[in-house]
């Protein structure tokens, strides 16, 4: 059987298994089981599925996933997100369309404390959007910036996507985490420019009252100091190269807990609630990862992985075209699947092309990560969009959200383009 036939069969099986609504983790498992049976045809040979299930998750680097999730859960459940939004709101007070700028700057701070853009988007959408609509902001300035700023959490460490991509593709997770910062700055600037340009049509948003004094703004800024500790424990520690990403995630989560506890003491009950919430999300993600090794082994045995990268090398006139094809596949998958599944399906293809064509893994990895994140805000099935719909006032329809997200999808792709043209954007923080 040629790799093309095998690939089409596997893709077809995947579409059927996922299309039926089988949970992703089980869909991959069923597919592995059937593929392995067809390949080997004996129960004895199937034991490799169990070994690879074990070795897929028995990876110390993956511990960063539950720890980062725990960090975000503590942060939100302890009410620290409101502290951040309040402080930034005070600093920006009096600026035209200040609320929209608050979305961006809060998105940056939340992104430095949480690893998933869905979480950051819901926090911003829940606290900020209703308030802005009440203050008379148009939808494009009350909802749009939230969609865009939420995705910054995908890029700013901690980032679950970077940990998953890094561990599945064998790329340095520390480098991949740090490489997200440059593109995050680019994306933030694009969103800020958009807000500036959009808000010129709404001069009435200027008269939001008198701005605070400089001293008052500085005092508000000081309120943010407690959250600097967990941010340092993650990003700072990884940048200074004093600990592994796993260790940084553990100390970051512990630091967040200490800050949250000092801010508002918690009962044992609350702590257990936070831990079980984090466990559910972690187990869900890691249970998808359980099938990952067997899946990539099947891609290797059937020759799909090497056939695909060989094929790309022969048709693509340059490295850039090959990269663009892989990114386009990830983007397309992202329109229909959740981010973990996209990473799962597309990383073996990405890694194959990357190794065969000698592409810088960090550069390629971070562009891949941005594209995967774009899937979260692209219609029709971006999870962030549905999460946002769930928390904003009911007069914002799904149709509104589909329309409002489009400029931000474009900004994400522009960020990919800028990173592609200037690899230094991703790599300036790396040694």
């Amino acid at each position, binding site marked *: 059987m040629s790799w093309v036939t095998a690939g089409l069969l596997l893709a077809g099986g995947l579409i059927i298994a996922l299309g039926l609504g089988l949970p992703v983790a089980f869909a991959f498992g069923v597919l592995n089981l059937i593929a392995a049976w067809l390949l080997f045809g004996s129960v004895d040979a199937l034991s490799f599925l169990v070994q690879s299930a074990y070795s897929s998750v028995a990876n110390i680097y993956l511990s960063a996933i539950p720890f980062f999730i725990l960090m975000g859960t503590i942060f939100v459940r302890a009410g620290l997100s409101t502290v951040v939004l309040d402080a930034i709101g005070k600093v920006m007070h009096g600026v035209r369309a200040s609320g929209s700028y608050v979305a961006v700057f809060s998105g940056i701070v939340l992104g430095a404390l949480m690893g998933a853009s869905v979480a950051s988007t819901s926090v911003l959408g829940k606290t900020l959007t209703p308030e802005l609509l009440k203050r008379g902001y148009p939808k494009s300035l009350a909802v749009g910036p939230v969609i865009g700023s939420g995705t910054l959490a995908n890029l700013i460490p901690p980032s679950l996507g970077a940990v998953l991509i890094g561990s599945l593709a064998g790329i340095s997770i520390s480098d991949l985490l740090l490489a997200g910062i440059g593109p995050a700055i680019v994306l933030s600037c694009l969103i800020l420019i958009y807000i500036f340009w959009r808000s010129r049509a709404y001069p009435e948003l200027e008269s939001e009252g008198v701005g605070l004094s400089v001293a008052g703004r500085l005092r508000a800024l000081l309120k943010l100091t407690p959250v600097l500790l967990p941010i340092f424990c993650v990003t700072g520690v990884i940048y200074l190269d004093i600990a592994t990403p796993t260790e940084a995630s553990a100390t970051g989560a512990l630091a967040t807990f200490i800050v949250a506890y000092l801010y508002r003491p918690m009962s044992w009950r609350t702590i257990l609630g936070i831990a079980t919430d984090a466990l559910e999300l972690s187990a869900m993600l890691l249970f998808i990862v359980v099938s990952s090794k067997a899946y990539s082994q099947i891609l290797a045995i059937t020759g799909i992985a090497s056939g695909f990268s060989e094929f790309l090398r022969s048709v693509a006139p340059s490295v850039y075209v090959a990269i663009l094809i892989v990114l386009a596949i990830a983007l397309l998958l992202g329109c229909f699947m959740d981010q973990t599944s996209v990473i799962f399906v597309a990383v073996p293809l990405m890694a194959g092309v990357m190794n065969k064509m000698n592409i810088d893994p960090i550069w390629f990895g971070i562009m891949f990560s941005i594209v995967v994140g774009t899937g979260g805000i692209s219609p029709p099935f971006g*999870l962030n969009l549905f999460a946002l719909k769930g928390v904003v006032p009911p007069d914002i329809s799904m149709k509104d959200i589909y329309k409002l997200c489009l400029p931000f999808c474009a900004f994400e792709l522009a960020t990919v383009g800028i990173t592609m043209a200037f690899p230094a954007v991703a790599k300036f923080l790396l040694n």
Partner: protein
Amino acid sequence: MTRSREDGGTFESLMSRFSDGVGVVGAIILVLMLLLIALSVVLRYAFNAPITWADQVATYGLVYMTFVGAPRVLARRGHVSVDILEASLNPHRQKLLRVFVDVIGMLYCIAFCYLALLEIKRVITRGAEFSDAFTVPQWIVYWVIPFGAAMLALQFLANLLIDLRRLRNPESTSDVQFGGWA
């Protein structure tokens, strides 16, 4: 994640409670892993005395956490799925599809549990060991895989019974939901 056990019989509610409880064990493992790694970092910097076995234990903790946590997620129907087809169906067909998915999931988990038990039998007879910072018989880590798979199979059965009851009751709604990186 939506809780959906308002219409459970005895087995269903017992199973969901069991999955929930085992999940709490997973949460405790998660917290202990965190403390262990953080403590190891502190000891390394403060006293230049890292806990050499910390990574190995945390790795096993991760495996345990995943397999004891998954049934709890299933009990709460929190495993992320792609619901493009489901969302386009009428409520009756949605419920029918749910039943079908429960059956497939259950059969898969039974098969996986069987394979895992075979594997455990093999590592026990061979006396296979993991050795890193310390040496440990492989079955001590592996047993959680068939345990988790068996619990998942039973939880799929519980979900199946609930979905069958919903299928027969035209009044009940099928709660389409989106899971994901919340």
